[in-house]
């Protein structure tokens, strides 16, 4: 496994597919959530419209260098995460740039965008941005823990840190999926998943009522457009990791679309039912409910 130039157009193709799928999926999810609330919801192409509008806006201001680069960090984080993990199992075309590193790279690269974005938001000088970051970071420490334990359990289970090998080990039957071979790890990871999807009850970071949209408060026009692009890519990139680790990966794009949709729906289902937690509540919630599952997973592997 190494670098070949052809991987660049292949990776761009993956990116293209994922961006479009992400934009549509986000709209669909918004629509579903709206329907649950007895509203009509947005048209399915709304995200395209928003993005084109934002990229095209001519008024734009900056608060400084970090502010300017914040969205770039954010989107690089999303794109990088997507490309460091193979998307379609068994496909050379869609193995992306996974030669650069294994699962650990993906785990830690998640923070690249978050950190950069937080720094950019910080330079805007807006207190809401800082408050949002403070909340987000506080929550992520607890939310990440069960996921980290689950990953550890899975890595121990398959005795590898290579994503491709982990997916390979789950092929053959759906009963080989980690979901069935190591249910505690998956349970822990899925609870952690709730915490990272910016949906209720863990959406205090954006908290529309108290700190309107949190960290991105000051971002507008093309900055916001970059972040919207990321919002299409990043959740999917993350779910790709979940899919590969716990749900047998995907051997083709249709399976990929279905699995991603279903994984996403977990957070949507929970989100439409529960109200929002305070930060301290969610921290405790993860420690009390999710972490023990992770510990069990690690202990019994």
């Amino acid at each position, binding site marked *: 496994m190494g670098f070949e130039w052809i991987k660049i157009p292949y990776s761009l193709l993956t990116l293209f597919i994922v961006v479009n799928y992400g934009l549509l999926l986000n709209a669909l999810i918004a629509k579903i959530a709206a329907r649950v609330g007895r509203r009509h919801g947005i048209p399915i192409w709304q995200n395209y419209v928003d993005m084109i509008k934002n990229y095209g806006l001519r008024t734009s201001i900056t608060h400084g260098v970090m502010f300017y680069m914040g969205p770039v960090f954010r989107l690089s984080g999303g794109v990088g995460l997507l490309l460091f993990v193979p998307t379609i199992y068994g496909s050379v075309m869609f193995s992306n740039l996974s030669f650069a*590193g*294994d699962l650990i*790279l993906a785990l830690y690269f998640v923070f690249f965008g978050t950190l950069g974005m937080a720094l950019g938001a910080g330079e805007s000088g807006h207190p809401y941005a800082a408050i949002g970051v403070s909340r987000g970071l506080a929550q992520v420490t607890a939310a*990440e823990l069960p996921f980290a334990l689950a990953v550890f359990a899975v890595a121990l289970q398959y005795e590898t840190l290579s994503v491709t090998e982990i997916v390979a080990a789950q092929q053959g039957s759906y009963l080989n999926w980690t979901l069935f071979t190591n249910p505690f790890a998956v349970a822990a990871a899925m609870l952690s998943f709730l915490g990272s999807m910016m949906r209720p009850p863990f959406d205090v970071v954006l908290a529309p009522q108290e700190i309107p949209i949190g960290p991105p408060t*000051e971002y507008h026009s093309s900055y916001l457009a970059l972040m919207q692009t990321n919002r299409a890519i990043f959740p999917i990139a993350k779910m790709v990791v979940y899919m590969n680790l716990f749900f047998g990966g995907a051997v083709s794009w249709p399976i990929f679309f279905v699995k991603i949709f279903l994984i996403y729906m977990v957070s949507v289902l929970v989100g439409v039912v529960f109200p929002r937690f305070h930060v301290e509540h969610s921290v405790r919630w993860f420690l009390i409910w999710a972490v023990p599952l992770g510990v069990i997973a690690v202990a019994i592997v």
Partner: protein
Amino acid sequence: MVDALAIIYLTLGTAFLLGLLRDEWRILAYGITLLSLAMVSGIASTWVWHLADNPAESVEIMTAGASPPFAINLRMGLAEAAALMLATLTGLASTIFLKDTLLRLGRRAMAVLLVFIMAICGIILTRDIFNLFVFFELVVIATAGLVLLSHNERSLGAGFKYLMASQVVSILLLVGIIFNYHVSGSLNIDDMAGMSDMLIQTTPLAFFLLFIALIVELKPFPANGWALDIYESAHPAFSAILSAAAGTASLFAVDKVLAIGGDSWLPVATGIGVLSFIGANLFALAQTSDRRLLGYSSVAQIGLILAIIGQRDILGDSYWLIAGGVLLAHAVGKAGLFWLSGLIAERELTAWTALRDRPLLLFAFISFIALLIGLPPFPGFYAKWELIHLLAGADRIALIVLILFGALLETAYLFRWFGLILKHDEVAEKAPCPIQKVVVIYSAVVAAWSLAYLWGELSVFGNLMHAIPLLFALLFLPLEGLPARIKNVLAIGGLVTWFILQYPLYDPLQLIFGAIILPGGALILLASFHNQGRRIGFYPAALWMFAGLSMLIVAEDSFTFFAAWESLTIGSYFLILRGKHSQPHAQSYILFSLGGAFLMLLGFALASAGNPLFPLESLTTVAEDVAPWVFILLALGMMTKTAAIGVHIWLPGAHAEAETDVSPLLSGILLKAGLFGLFILLIYMGRQQLYGIDLTHVLLWVGAISALLGNLMAIYQEDAKRLLAYSSIAQMGYALFGLALMNHLGWLMALMFVVNHYIYKSMLFLSVGGVAKRTGTKEMYRMGGLITLMPLSFIAVLIGIIAVSGVPPLSGFGGRWIFYNAIMSAEYRLPMVIIFLAGPIAFLYLFRLIHTIFLGQLKDEHRKLKEAPFWIILPQMIYVACLMVFALAPGLALRHVDAYIDNFFPRNGLNWEGLTITSTYGYWSPVSIMIVVGVIFATLFAWLVFVNRRAQKVKQFNIVFAAERPYRPETTHFAWNFFAPYRKALGFMTQPLVTRFWATVAESLHTSAELFRRLYTGDGQTYAIQLLGFVVAVYLLSSGVFYGV
């Protein structure tokens, strides 16, 4: 050779001669006194010189033309000669010191002083027990005379109390002598010693009386209220003689008499000695008067020597070297301090702040306390090392623990005193410093260092004063007058040169640590070019620390290791103490460090089964029953340096309050000493089990909990340097964790942390220090928005936090990647839960660090700030470059270490071929990651610049603020108590339980000292009763010895 008796008759004769002079001829009388003391000192010195070369030629001096028991005999051996030299020189020096007083008091005082010295010499020389009594009586009379002559009310009281106590002692002594004479028919000590068995069996009480009388002459705790009053109220120069010379003579007497008692009485002496050592040191903790404190310290030191005398049976040939080392150290150190107190106007300890602006006197003070505590390279150090080993060899562990505990108490008050001198808020007025007094003090300093050299020569371990790094550090003492920049050039040159010289000798492990210590230290010292002026005290201390560090990594035997360890501890203590508010932190640092060092000492002593020359490699072959204990002791000692949780409380303050360029030295370099020690420990001892518990497993938990709590506490700090300090605790926890994993990659990870932590933490401390220098505060919420004003500092912090957090593509990620691979093959899984929790918490404080300082709202008072000074920025930029290189090519350093670790854990190494690093479980390609991330970032950035090319920079308050305009930066900068919700959720974990525990320990020690010292009422009758009570108590407690039980 001049007849030894000349010492007696010269002094006595002069004393009589003085009586013949007219009272007005005081200068003449003083001259004669000096001359006679100089002559006897000369005689004693020539004897020392002669007997040192020919130790067999000790002389028996017969008097009155008959041999004992029909006449008195004296003996002059090497020990006697040395003691005489000490006594006469102390007398001479004190007489010089006392010039004004003696001229005022006249010839009578001089005569009494001479008689006093003569009597002391007599006690040392005589072998006749009644003669001993006579000389003691002379000492008593002379003491009382000198005290009473001083015409001050307190001294009068003290003198009478002293006489009362002495009467009791004399009666006991005389009765004892009579009984013994009755039984043995001889007054000669050697005759009696020959009949020892018979004497002890038939009339044990007779010996007891003799023994206890001489013991009480030593002023043992607690029967010594009268003695303390003397120390407190007499002239300090007299106290110097009393403590140094008379104390020595009394110890000599006890030593002689114990020859009669035989070995069965040795434990009694040890018991009284140790009680005295601990009790007096404990009481000294509560003292605020300098001379009383010195009095307690004298009692304690003499107690220690008594305990050593009591261990004579197992010390063998080393007895004189050990007892002599401690004795001479005590004598010179204590006399020096008493003399120094003569230059201080008031009696409060705080009055010693007058020394602050007198570097030479301050150096004298440091030398004296180092001498007393027994720090390297002074004689007490060698003596302590050998003593503890011999005791361990004889399995007297409880005694070792007691002695070390007492020594720690002593360290506590002596170093607190020193801290007070340097850091107390008010500076006391200076008293005049007559030249003769200063000369006396400096000669004591010369004596101290000469003794250091001498003991180095006498010891079998090699002379520390020949160690080039230590000599290089000492070289900076005479250079203190030069400007700091010149000294800095020298220091950097020295570090780099030493590295170049040593480089070929290092193995890969030593090389990693050596590179961090020497060139790494030089890099940090670049920041020191920022300092103007002479910066007195910085360079000797810093280089002493570096000397210790560079000796530590090449140490091959336990002695060198320990000497290096103590050296680096002392050097760093002085560095820490330099900070403005760092006194309490430096104090707790030195206590924890020396406490840890003592544990190590005990560990080494146990490991070697009493052999003081112990190669570190032999740790592999330690006897099975003690091995786990050795492991625990050594590990605990080393963990005080890495500030593992439980013994971490010194670190935050010490690092935070230190000067700008000192914090990185401490955090980046000093902490690594502990890690190096742990490496050595684990390399040689490996896994150890105690009651079935794997001790490395315990270390794993300690490391994990340190990582978690260090990180948690870091997020709640408002002070930027404290935040970094707590972060260091956590990072060292990670490294400890890696080591304790006991597998290949765990160790590699620990080494990666060693390198990474050095780079990023040094860089961050420098950045934050530079910012603090400009803003005048370390409180983060008082800063904000500094990014445009201090862009370079910002870049350093940004790169630093990315590296600390482990986010790709910088080198921190490599550490995480190795960590995950390491835990894959770990045997224990539960501690990982803690480590996993600790990981993301680092993001919290790292973001806070960069956000609250550089982002957010700029404060009005900071609008005109400049970038941090050039010399502080320069090393940071070099670190940035290092981090980049290390991120791209970690193999440069790590592949050699990886290969080296194969020696210990041949399995699961990494494969470094090509650009991708592979392990058994995964792979990682630093260059590819860097390129991929770089290309994606650059592309997106170019895209943003393209679509957003007309973006306008807006002013600070131009933000969407609910249609309001923010009022002030202070109210808009979200910074204080940044993670308030987190405190609600997990704050309970950061309750300062450990701090409270140690505070309670310190508090209860002080309280008990305060409580029990009330026994010393100052009332003469009480003292007499206490004295008798003491005698009775010793009698009852030692009755087992009497009846041969």
